[in-house]
């Protein structure tokens, strides 16, 4: 299987804390891979390593066969990785459409001179960007909200707008950091369908950090589990469900033993 992202032996040390410890990790193209683990396991740190916000202490990350290490966040985005944020980071005082247009920034060419002269070419580019922005908003279930300020959108809409904005960068790999956090079951179901659509119809590869196990088990092709910065398990959702180390990490040793015994009995 083609690997879109291939991380080898990645570590990140903050002072005395090893947030990510020698993790090997890869994402095959056109799949949904979930990254799970208890709070503080290093999931978001791992995300930040992928997107250039942090530089890893050791290790290599290849994206499409090209090294990602040392690139600035905007260069990572230009190569086709887009992300959303765990704590929503929209441009609050800009409209929904403008947010998506900023997402398209690196795919547009208009410079200072072009912006002032507004040649037909620039106008055409702008129109295409707007059309694409509206289309992405519609895809993410935000039709008709393009003129709303991001800060005035409901919580669920803000989460979806983050995805629309990330899609604006025209990514091949989309990193979603807890996209369903704070959503009600209804909204969660809609979002799950959206992520599936992105993979099936748009050929996107998705890396998901998620706490809602129902979502993880439903849509993931593969699941990787981090605990205290280490990768403790990796595999198909069914395998992860019954993995004793994973159960231990989440629920404690005693529970893990009884769970394994139960599994053996049945």
């Amino acid at each position, binding site marked *: 299987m083609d690997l879109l992202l291939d991380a080898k032996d990645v570590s990140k040390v*903050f002072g005395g804390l090893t947030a990510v410890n020698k993790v090997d990790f890869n994402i095959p*193209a056109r799949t949904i891979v979930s990254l799970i683990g208890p709070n503080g396991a290093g999931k978001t740190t791992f995300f930040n390593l992928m997107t250039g916000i942090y530089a890893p202490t050791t290790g290599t990350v290849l994206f*499409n066969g090209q090294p990602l290490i040392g690139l600035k966040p905007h260069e990572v985005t230009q190569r086709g990785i887009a992300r959303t944020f765990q704590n929503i*980071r929209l441009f609050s005082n800009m409209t929904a459409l403008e947010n998506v247009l900023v997402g398209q*920034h690196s795919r547009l060419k*208009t410079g200072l001179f072009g912006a002032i002269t507004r040649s037909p070419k620039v106008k055409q580019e702008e129109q295409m960007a707007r059309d694409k922005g509206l289309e992405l908003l519609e895809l993410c279930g935000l039709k008709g909200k393009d003129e709303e300020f991001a800060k005035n959108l409901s919580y669920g809409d803000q989460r979806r707008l983050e995805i629309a904005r990330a899609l604006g*960068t025209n990514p091949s790999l989309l990193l979603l950091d807890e996209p369903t956090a704070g959503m009600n079951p209804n909204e969660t179901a809609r979002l799950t369908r959206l992520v599936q659509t992105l993979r099936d119809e748009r050929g996107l590869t998705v890396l998901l950090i998620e706490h809602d196990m129902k979502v993880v088990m439903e849509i993931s092709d593969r699941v990787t589990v981090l605990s205290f910065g280490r990768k403790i398990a990796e595999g198909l959702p069914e395998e992860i469900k019954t993995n004793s180390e994973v159960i231990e990490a989440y629920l404690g040793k005693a529970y893990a033993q009884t769970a394994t015994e139960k599994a053996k009995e049945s």
Partner: protein
Amino acid sequence: MSVTAPTPTTGSNPAPPPRSRERIPQERNKVLVFGGMALAGFAFPFLIQAFLKGTDYISVISTANSIFVYILLALGLNIVVGYAGLLDLGYAAFFAIGAYTMAFLTSASSPLAGTPFHTNFWIALPISFLMAALFGVLLGAPTLGLKGDYLAIVTLGFGEIVPITFNNLTQLTGGDSGLSNLDQPPFPLVEFSPTNPIPWYTLSLIVVIFSIWMVRRLIDSRIGRAWQALREDEIAASAMGLDLVKTKLLAFGMGASFAGFAGAIYAGSINTANPSQFRFDVSIIVLAMVILGGMGNLWGVIVGALVIQLLDRLLIPSLLDTVGGAGQDIIKTNGKGDFFGQLLINISSSQTRLLIFGLLLVSMMLLRPEGLFPNSRRRMELHDGDENGSQRRLNKLQKWLTDTGIWTFRATDEKDLQPQLGLTDDPLEQAERSHNINYNPSVNESSDPDDDKDKR
């Protein structure tokens, strides 16, 4: 290992959804209003000339000219502070650089006078503009990692360094007395001169109109959106593919180039450039214009510049004259030792204008931090809640005064303060709170890496 990345496309281009909304007629109205204002602007000096006999009209038109120069400054600072969100307290430095470049190239007292490098106004104008833009970028470069207060302090320092340098480079800039006797711009049929302000007025007006047109286009473009995204959230902006370095330097350079233009025209029209014209209070007054008008709103900023210049040049001087006159009268009747009379005379000193601006700025921040004219779309949304908003801020001010012990309000006012302390039933405030806090119930990881990044 080469992988053909799936290139997601936008899908088979669906028919573009109709762009509804009453945008187009609104735009047309705006253009009409703008055109009308521009026409009135061009006709203004001739009307004044017809109504005011003698030399009075000259001072009125020179005042109008300097108002335009300040509008230009406010437009430029608005790009840096209002759109890109970079607090610049040394904006007068670029104004000075523009003015001194112009004076250095065209003044009769400049060391270049008599050499082949002595140029005329029209050549010096773009050079001044480029010099200011260059220094804008030069100042921007070392401050790239700085935000908010730290950036403000560095720019403050730059704003002090530049006029002092000009003051001390006596050989080049004439020191305290500056450079004077600038070549007036040669122009067919029209004679520019320091005593005939109409051509200068017209030139400034044209530059202002051109600048407004330019800013409007810039803001509603890829570049303008990038600036606003930078202001809203740097980390998200860079994650969306914005080159922060480029975007910031462009904002600094653009903002500074406006000041360069303004400086060049200002020096030419008053026929001199000297260090005292570019002190710290110029930076602050321009900043006050931007804040008073409403940061990030083009028209608001222009109104802010107009209001403050009118206050500064007409209202406050006449007010202070009246106060001073009253003081003189009291002293005449009560004798020289009268405390109240002396006090009034002291108040009427020209320095009081800074006190008035300071008070204006402080009360503006407390009562209406979004400016006189916040972004029009935002105002529409706040429309019916606006009164509540002002009331809330008034309560805040009262609470602050009470807390700090400056002033105690009567018991009846205590009741008004109640909503401030606990939950509010004002829907606007509720909305503001819930959206600003970004409440996310699942965030309880011990270290939030995004916050870490902020501190770096």
